[in-house]
């Protein structure tokens, strides 16, 4: 057991009839980390989170939360978690206040503490004035904020958030993201699933990219961008016109595209190709007028890895 791990997953597999939703995945989330689980729809993100939170049982493999096995010590692992599921599932026939009190009682939070915390969170999320209203009258954004209040009532050591900002207006998204950062800063480990690349990029220390139930890559957003071969590019323009064929002969250049008066070179290793490009210009007596290096966006990396994993599946 790695004592530094908040989540340790080993060879987890889950099938629904013929469909393998999660296939033999393994990863670790460090204590205090904000970990993103990134993937397209039906990639296996929600199935993974539902296994880790004890809703469904894995077919194979093991997982532990802060060292407690999710199957053998389910109650202990659940006691440490706060959960915002994908589907808004607060009790619509209860008030916001009673929903929070219910969850507080289920986690064994003493009455005074749960009332103080509920008051604090409802105020922070701007729901305090509506605390006695039935949830059936709440908007999606309000429900989502309430789910976060419910998830936080036990002061969890780890927060599982399944698409927490999906379908929300910009203001609500920003508020929820700010709160997630805040809780993470105070030491809470966060496990976040999203299909929003920008969200993962803004929030996460590390991301795992999952597609068709398999993990395609795990790293920090920046490292994923940097290590993605073929996705880095250089925009260059010379004082004289030059054909794409000449540039494509430079070693390490994968592809050359003419873009207006510039040439875009897709490259494997940025620094090596830059040296070779300067040598090339000298040898051809060309003057470089403009040169820009372009790192891939996380979206580029994501699409590439998803495409690769899909190609892998077909073989």
């Amino acid at each position, binding site marked *: 057991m790695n004592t530094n791990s908040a989540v340790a997953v080993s060879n987890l597999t889950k099938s629904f009839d013929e469909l393998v939703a999660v296939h033999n995945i393994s990863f670790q989330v460090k204590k205090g980390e904000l970990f993103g689980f990134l993937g397209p729809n039906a990639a296996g993100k929600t199935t993974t989170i539902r296994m880790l939170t004890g809703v469904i049982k894995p077919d194979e493999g093991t997982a532990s939360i802060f060292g407690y096995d999710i199957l053998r010590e389910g109650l202990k692992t659940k006691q440490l978690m706060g959960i915002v599921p994908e589907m808004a599932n607060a009790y619509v026939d209860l008030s916001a206040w*009673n929903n929070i009190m219910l969850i507080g009682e289920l986690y064994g939070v003493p009455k005074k503490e749960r009332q103080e915390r509920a008051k604090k969170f409802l105020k922070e999320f701007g729901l305090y004035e509506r605390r006695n209203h039935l949830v059936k009258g709440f908007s999606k954004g309000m429900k989502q904020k309430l789910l976060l209040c419910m998830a936080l009532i036990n002061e969890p050591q780890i927060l599982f958030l399944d698409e927490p900002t999906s379908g929300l207006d910009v203001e609500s998204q920003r508020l929820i993201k700010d709160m997630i950062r805040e809780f993470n800063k105070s030491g809470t480990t966060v496990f976040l699933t999203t299909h929003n690349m920008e969200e993962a990029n803004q929030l996460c220390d590390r991301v795992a990219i999952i597609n068709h139930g398999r993990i395609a890559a795990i790293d920090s957003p920046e490292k994923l961008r940097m290590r993605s071969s073929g996705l880095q590019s250089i925009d260059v323009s010379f004082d004289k016109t030059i054909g794409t064929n000449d540039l494509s002969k430079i070693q390490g250049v994968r592809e050359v595209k003419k873009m207006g008066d510039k040439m875009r070179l897709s490259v494997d290793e940025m620094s090596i190709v830059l040296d070779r490009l300067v040598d090339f210009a000298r040898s051809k007596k060309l003057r470089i007028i403009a040169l820009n290096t372009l790192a891939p966006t996380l979206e580029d990396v994501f699409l590439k890895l998803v495409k690769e994993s899909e190609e892998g599946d077909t073989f």
Partner: protein
Amino acid sequence: MKDYLYLEQFRRSFAIVKKNIRIYYSKGPVIIFGLIVPFFLFLSFYIGRNMPAEALIPGLLGMTAFFTATSVGPAIVPWEARAKTLERLVSSPISMWAIFLGDVFSSFLFGVIFSLFPIMIGWFIGVEIVNPLILGFAIILATFCFASFSILLSAYPPTDNPAGVMMLSSMIKFPLVFISGIFIPIEEMPLWGKTISSISPLTYFTDLARYSIQGQSYYPIALDFTVLVAFTILFLVTAIKIHERTMQKRL
């Protein structure tokens, strides 16, 4: 430590009770199948039949306790599966048995509260309760037994259709009322009727109610209590086991 955990889980089951009281006591199917339908069924049988009040109240009490204590339980799990709140409960640190014990307690309380009405009606029309202590114990035990039976009714098949479960449970509950000595006293039944009536837990409660009000019972009251305890354990354990097995199919 283990004792503490069990005690803590038992305590958490009362959060389920509070939630159920707030949500399900006022649900349409619970009111219709638990109160209105049995009330009119009872009226249709007794109006125009010159029965002494002492004979009427035990039957009314039996029906009320049975229908009310079994009206909340079957609705809860399918309702929560459909509303996706069941997932919220399952992911909380509460054992499956504590969730269902909470459901049983909320059905039990509903049954006990409404069982007081026939007793009050009897009191207004001058029906004397000969053995109030026996009646009190009988109501508590029987409503707990019926409440346990009620969660068994929603255990299989694992559906998320509350109306379907309520209909199905009514198909089981109504025949039980007819064979349990409510409309026809057990002593007046033929042998085959007596045999069938012995498989219904309601028979033993109606017998205890008659003993408490009319001073006479068909079975010895110790047997009535013993059988009710046995039925309670059987229903509770079976219901929790089946729910545990089928829960994954609901999520």
